[in-house]
């Protein structure tokens, strides 16, 4: 019985079109993920395309998609007898229920397994495609494909199938099963969002039926080496997760699956019989012979549209869609996480981008489904013949149906807006910007989807049935994903595409209103043309062939239609011309590959000149006139240059700035040659060579302006409100620009470039006289005269000497009186400001009026930082410190001399109301202030490890200020984040992880590892000794230009304050990649007679040394480690965990049992609770009693 049921299910499904389509989808998605560079899942960098990790990732992610397949098959099986009206026949047969039901269930389950087996198959076939880069593929083995399939796919499919089967048996309705699937998915998404804190990750790993979170926890810190070699096995989180869910599935199947229940008919709902109603005899006398009035298109259109909208809106599917979107949005609005897990205020622009992100893929599905559903509604319900023979013009059908699709799209966005506004209000944010919602969501998001809807309708109109139409549309979507791979990146060639909106509260919509208007008109013109063809070819009757409909095209569209189509076509072509002229003729457009090729050519052309000397700028007097409304800057710099090299300079390379005209480089005794338009470079030729040490005067002049509009690569530095541009972007630069070099080694290999050397060797003393800002960047004398329109103010480094008005413009004169690096910015904006004076230093914060929350915190942070740094490291070189907000097109804060530009995306919008959260505003402010010492007073030689001297030391300084303010326990949370980000950062290393002192611009090392290492040192050496070492380092190199420090100097100063054991630690931390594994494994407490508590704590320790690719070897661990006992959970700030006992114990490799006698019973015990070690997993350091 069971086998024959199994067999029947197989024969039934393998003949269904949905089976074949799902098989294709589950084959093609992984196949494409393997062969298309742009849609890599899990691989990239040093991680191979076919690594066990990447294969598992694909299987897991598609497992979520697989849910919908399982719903389809299982619900179909469970409810088929009822829906196909076979129930009466089947129920009367002598069938044993258990075998029948189990057979049906297993049949449906095996179908799902069969379809899902397409995934490893697609991956495997993808991986043997001959055009793949063989260097990015590892050896294939059966286990790599089978193990993840067995561990992840089989149980996941079983759980889903069992749950859905039970639901289908219970509710006897496909819709109910879909609702269950939806509920499961929502629960999964919400759980993933809610349990996102580091200490909740184990919960998250277990409550996930798809095991995706279990796998990502399991592999959280896997390095490239591990990702390429380790096949995930059944242990740890994965094992627990699988066991839990297999149990859930089995229980659901046996308890809810009604396996043993005899088959029975569904109870038909007993309908209330209509009471016989007397029909008035007069009704039969009514005139039923009113004639059709003929061409009443308008009435028909109104009625038809209302009808179509009602059909859509009243259908249960629409309600489900709304609910689904609602939950999805609520989950994403639940906590808008900013830096270090601290939430951001729910700005409208943030809400909009969350809605956009949540909806983007969903809308492809919505349009696919609804275009088919709506276009073919009459055929599906069987009204086609009747309705099609009505005297209704094709246009009426097409347009009314299209409008009902638009209603779906727009109502989802309005729903999103409603949910967003409610969450904003609940969150206590009352600055509602309805206008921004409407423009961003409807004009920028919904409109393109509506146009895509027209396209989907067009495909449906051409198709003989809805499935082919859906297939065509989905096919188009997947092909469009690969457009960029094929070099089709211009929005002109991707239907309904336009430059993607990036909103800034400072600058509003900026140039995006212009681009959106042009591109949308362009696509609208095409949509009109497609629309006319669509209704011209509208299918009337069950089987009108396309050729028959073509023969009637002229008749159906008529003169009006032809005219409109022609107008659309002409508009389309003309707008194409306008867009082409603006984006390609008067502006430049590069595709990704094109740009990489250009950079490669630049490198090939000029790499021979990299070591050539060029003049160094030593004095700058700026004269900058800015016209923000026109986005125009006229800049002139009077400069003095010096030849710092040993040889005379007869010529040097000049890189001209982007978006500029009339660039001039005038230096006495020479002139700028012809401009190479490909690279936008020119050679400056001296007729009298610049002798070593010789100083000459010169001028740099440039007009930066914008004409027309661009497809991409807009200039975010020069905007209507919030201009922030530095000298490297504004003026011509000298010498070969090594930043143009391509970093990605695969891209380099493709272009026959040598492997990149990211930095000069630490020991290469020939670069010790070059600043890390780059060759030829030195301290300068600086002054600037800025002018701007009368509604904005302008800022440059230095002190405001005078300000005046002339011809309706504001003028500012800034002069710098202390040494400053030749790295400065010009800022221009209309902002509010708050000022404070602290021990003779003017602290000023300029901010957007609606971003006022954290201004005081920034001032506080700046004051505390100035106090601490002056006391610990040496005097502050300026009398002023200004923090200026700039638009969120760029998301960083950067320290210039006495000036800190600070993006609107960070800090200003952080929500600091919950004292439990880390305070990133205070931290970032302290970090940027610290750069006034580390970076602006202490330079760094242009060799490996240069960023350690600026960034790591700034991190340390900021953390010390944080520690003073918030205490050690709360610093733990910050350091836990830093350690986590370091460990994850190294998993996505593109080339090779370097030891700290040799870091090559690797942010996860110089920021994150730096924080942990420096705080460990601070603990080991003591604050005073460490600060003394840094003070001495600074004293040795402060403002020096002849010789810059390296990490060797840092280590030298550190060693000078350290004993021998400490020096060994410094070696481990700075010169090696060392990882530790400390765990608290067991704790037991017994209360003694005198009321004291005897606690026995078992800990284990291990130490590893890793190479640059992540391969580890075990080392001997033999160290002093902190042990602490807490009265409450130390992760919970609000609990005010008190340290009952803090001890230092000597621990060696392996397990150690420690005994303590405490005054009272602790709640938590931990080893290394304050993160002094680079521990591979801090989650197991603290244990609950």
């Amino acid at each position, binding site marked *: 019985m069971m086998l024959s049921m199994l067999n029947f299910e197989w024969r039934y499904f393998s003949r269904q079109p949905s089976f074949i389509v799902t098989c294709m989808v589950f084959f093609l998605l992984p196949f494409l993920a393997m062969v298309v560079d742009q849609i890599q899942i899990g691989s990239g960098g040093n991680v191979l395309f076919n690594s066990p990790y990447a294969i598992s990732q694909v299987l897991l992610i598609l497992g979520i998609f697989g849910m919908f397949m399982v719903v389809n098959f299982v619900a179909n099986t469970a409810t088929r007898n009822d829906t196909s009206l076979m129930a009466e026949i089947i129920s009367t047969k002598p069938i044993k229920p258990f075998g029948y039901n189990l057979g049906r269930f297993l049949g449906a389950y095996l179908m799902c397994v069969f379809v899902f087996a397409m995934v490893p198959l697609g991956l495997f076939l993808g991986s043997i495609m001959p055009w793949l880069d063989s260097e990015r593929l590892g050896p294939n083995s059966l286990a790599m494909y089978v193990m993840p399939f067995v561990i992840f796919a089989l149980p996941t499919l079983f759980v889903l199938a069992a749950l859905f089967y039970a639901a289908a048996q219970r509710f006897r309705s496909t819709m109910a099963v879909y609702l269950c699937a939806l509920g499961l998915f929502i629960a999964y998404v919400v759980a993933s969002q809610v349990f996102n804190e580091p200490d909740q990750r184990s919960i998250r790993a277990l409550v996930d039926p798809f095991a995706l979170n279990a796998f990502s926890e399991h592999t959280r810190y896997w390095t490239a080496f591990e990702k390429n070699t380790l096949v995930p096995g059944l242990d740890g989180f994965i094992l627990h997760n699988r066991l839990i869910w297999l149990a859930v599935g089995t229980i659901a199947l046996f308890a809810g699956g009604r396996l043993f229940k005899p088959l029975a008919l569904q109870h038909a709902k007993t*309908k209330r019989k*209509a009471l*016989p*109603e007397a*029909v008035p005899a007069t*009704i*039969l*006398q*009514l*005139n*039923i*012979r*009113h*004639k*059709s*009035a*003929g*061409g*009443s298109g308008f*009435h*028909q259109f109104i*009625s*038809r549209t209302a*009808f179509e909208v009602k*059909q859509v809106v*009243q*259908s249960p599917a629409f309600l489900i869609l709304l609910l689904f979107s609602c939950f999805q949005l609520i989950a994403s609005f639940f906590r808008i996480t900013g830096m270090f897990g601290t939430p951001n205020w729910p700005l409208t622009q943030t809400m909009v981008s969350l809605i956009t992100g949540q909806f983007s893929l969903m809308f492809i599905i919505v349009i696919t489904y609804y275009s088919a559903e709506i276009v073919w*509604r009459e055929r599906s*319900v*069987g*009204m086609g*013949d*009747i*309705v*099609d*023979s*009505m*005297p*209704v*013009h094709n246009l009426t059908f097409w347009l009314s149906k299209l409008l009902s699709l638009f209603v779906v799209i727009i109502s989802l966005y309005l729903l999103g807006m409603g949910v967003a506004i409610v969450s904003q209000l609940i969150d206590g944010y009352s600055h509602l910007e309805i206008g921004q919602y409407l423009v961003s969501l409807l004009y920028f998001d919904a409109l393109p989807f509506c146009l895509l809807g027209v396209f989907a309708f067009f495909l449906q109109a051409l198709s003989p049935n809805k499935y082919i139409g859906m297939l065509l549309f989905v096919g188009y979507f997947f092909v469009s994903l690969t457009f960029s791979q094929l070099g089709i990146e211009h929005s002109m060639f991707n239907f309904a595409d336009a430059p993607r909106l990036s909103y800034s509260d400072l600058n509003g919509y900026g140039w995006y209103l212009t681009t959106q208007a042009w591109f949308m008109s362009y696509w609208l013109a095409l949509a009109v043309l497609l629309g006319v063809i669509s209704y011209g070819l509208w299918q*009337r*009757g*069950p*089987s*009108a*062939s396309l050729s*028959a409909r073509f*023969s*009637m095209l002229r*008749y159906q569209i008529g003169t009006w239609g032809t005219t409109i189509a022609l107008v659309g076509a002409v508009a389309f072509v003309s707008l194409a011309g306008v867009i082409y002229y603006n984006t390609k003729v008067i502006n430049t457009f590069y595709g990704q590959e094109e740009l990489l090729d250009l950079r490669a050519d630049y490198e090939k052309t000029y790499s021979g000149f990299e070591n050539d000397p060029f003049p160094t700028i030593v004095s700058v007097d700026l004269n900058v006139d800015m016209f923000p409304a026109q986005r125009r800057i006229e800049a002139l710099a009077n400069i003095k240059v010096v030849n710092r090299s040993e040889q005379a300079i007869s010529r040097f390379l000049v890189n001209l700035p982007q978006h500029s005209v009339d660039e001039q480089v005038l230096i006495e005794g020479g002139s700028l040659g012809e401009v190479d338009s490909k690279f936008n470079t020119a050679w400056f030729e001296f007729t009298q060579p610049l002798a070593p040490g010789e100083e000459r005067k010169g001028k740099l002049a440039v007009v930066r302006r914008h004409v027309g509009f661009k497809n991409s690569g807009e200039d975010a530095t020069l905007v209507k409100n919030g201009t922030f541009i530095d000298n490297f972007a504004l003026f011509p630069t000298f010498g070969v620009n090594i930043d143009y070099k391509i970093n990605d080694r695969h891209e380099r290999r493709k272009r026959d470039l040598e492997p990149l050397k990211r930095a000069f060797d630490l020991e290469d003393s020939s670069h010790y006289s070059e600043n890390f800002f780059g060759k030829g960047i030195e301290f300068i004398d600086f002054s600037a005269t800025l002018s701007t329109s009368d509604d904005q103010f302008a800022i440059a480094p230095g002190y405001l000497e005078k300000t005046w008005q002339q011809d309706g413009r504001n003028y500012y004169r800034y002069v710098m009186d202390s040494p400053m690096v030749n790295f400065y910015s010009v800022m221009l904006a209309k902002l509010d400001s708050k000022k404070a004076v602290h021990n003779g230093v003017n602290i000023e914060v300029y901010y957007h009026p609606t971003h006022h929350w954290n201004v005081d915190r920034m001032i506080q942070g700046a004051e505390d930082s100035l106090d601490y740094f002056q006391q610990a490291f040496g005097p502050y070189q300026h009398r002023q410190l200004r923090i200026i907000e700039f638009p969120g097109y760029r998301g960083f804060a950067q320290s210039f001399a006495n000036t800190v530009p600070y993006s609107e995306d960070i800090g200003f919008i952080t929500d600091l109301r919950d004292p439990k959260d880390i305070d990133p505003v205070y931290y970032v402010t302290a970090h940027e202030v610290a750069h006034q010492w580390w970076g602006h007073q202490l330079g760094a030689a242009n060799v490996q490890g240069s960023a350690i001297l600026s960034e790591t030391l700034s991190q340390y300084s900021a953390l010390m200020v944080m520690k003073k303010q918030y205490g050690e326990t709360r610093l733990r949370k910050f350091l836990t984040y830093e350690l986590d980000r370091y460990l994850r950062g190294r998993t996505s290393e593109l080339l090779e992880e370097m030891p700290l002192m040799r870091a090559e611009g690797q942010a996860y090392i110089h920021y994150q590892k730096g924080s942990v290492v420096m705080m460990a040192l601070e603990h080991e050496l003591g604050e005073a000794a460490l600060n003394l070492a840094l003070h001495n380092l600074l004293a040795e190199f402060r403002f020096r230009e002849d010789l810059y420090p390296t990490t060797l100097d840092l280590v030298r100063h550190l060693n000078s304050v350290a004993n021998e054991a400490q020096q060994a630690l410094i070696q481990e931390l700075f010169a090696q990649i060392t990882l530790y594994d400390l765990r608290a494994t067991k704790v037991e407490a017994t209360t003694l007679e005198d009321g004291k508590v005897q606690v026995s704590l078992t800990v284990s320790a291990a130490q590893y040394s890793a190479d640059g690719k992540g391969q580890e070897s075990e080392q001997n661990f033999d160290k002093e480690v902190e042990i602490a006992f807490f009265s409450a959970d130390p992760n919970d700030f609000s609990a005010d965990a008190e340290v009952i006992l803090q001890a230092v114990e000597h621990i060696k490799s392996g397990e150690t049992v420690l005994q303590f006698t405490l005054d009272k019973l602790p709640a938590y015990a931990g080893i290394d609770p304050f993160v002094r070690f680079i521990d591979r997993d801090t989650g197991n350091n603290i244990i609950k009693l």
Partner: protein
Amino acid sequence: MLTIQAITKTYPNGVKALNGVNLSIEKGLFGLLGPNGAGKSSLMRTIATLQQPDSGSITFDQVDVLRQPNELRQRLGYLPQEFGVYPRISAYDLLDHLAILKGIDNKGQRKEAVDGLLAHTNLFQHRKKAVSGFSGGMRQRFGIAQALLGDPDLLIVDEPTAGLDPEERNRFHNLLVSLGQEKVVILSTHIVDDVSELCANMAVLGNGEILLKGNPLTVTEELNGQIWRKVVSIEEAAEIESQLAVISKRLFAGRTVLHVLASEAPAGFDSTPASLEDVYFSSLHRSRLVKQA
């Protein structure tokens, strides 16, 4: 009024549904008889502008049906053989909506027509119920009501009485006759009685071809004297069938009644007056012979 010339249609799967169909239909009720699969629905759909033939032409009162479908649709009422309805919509609302599509713009007129048609099809007391919940017969009556909306000049009804009980069938026939005088009504059916009761003209369609056309009375009279009847057992029937042109075979009180077409009485057969059914079966029989030959 309606002229059909040389209509031929072959489906993509190779089935030749219509093969050179010529018909000329005047005002009044016209019956189109034919077995399942004869091409009736194909022909109906072609006339109802829902399907383009491969060749041939159809004109209705100077309207080229195939080239000017929209013009014809204003004068057309069509009841397809099978149809479904939209979910979640009441009979009244759906009929009202269809009335708008039919072009009855005047609100008062529309209400009158919709109420009246619901009453005529005995659905008035169910007008607020969802059509999707109707029984087969009720749904068929709804189909009839919608076909009559807008008083069409050309009314095409495909198997209209399928699923109706005898009372409802009579009611429909009466309605059809009372309305059918000034319009062309084409009634496609395989129930011979429907045609004999209603139609002044008829045609028999078999294998996509017109096998016979004319007035039911005339064609029946032409066959008088050629139909012979015998009541036999089941075993005997099989033997006779192999020898004679048996056009119909039906059971009556457990015995088999055979009708045979012949100019002279075969042995043991009695003369019987020709009915329209005999006409229908004999034309089918003849076409089968032609096919075999």
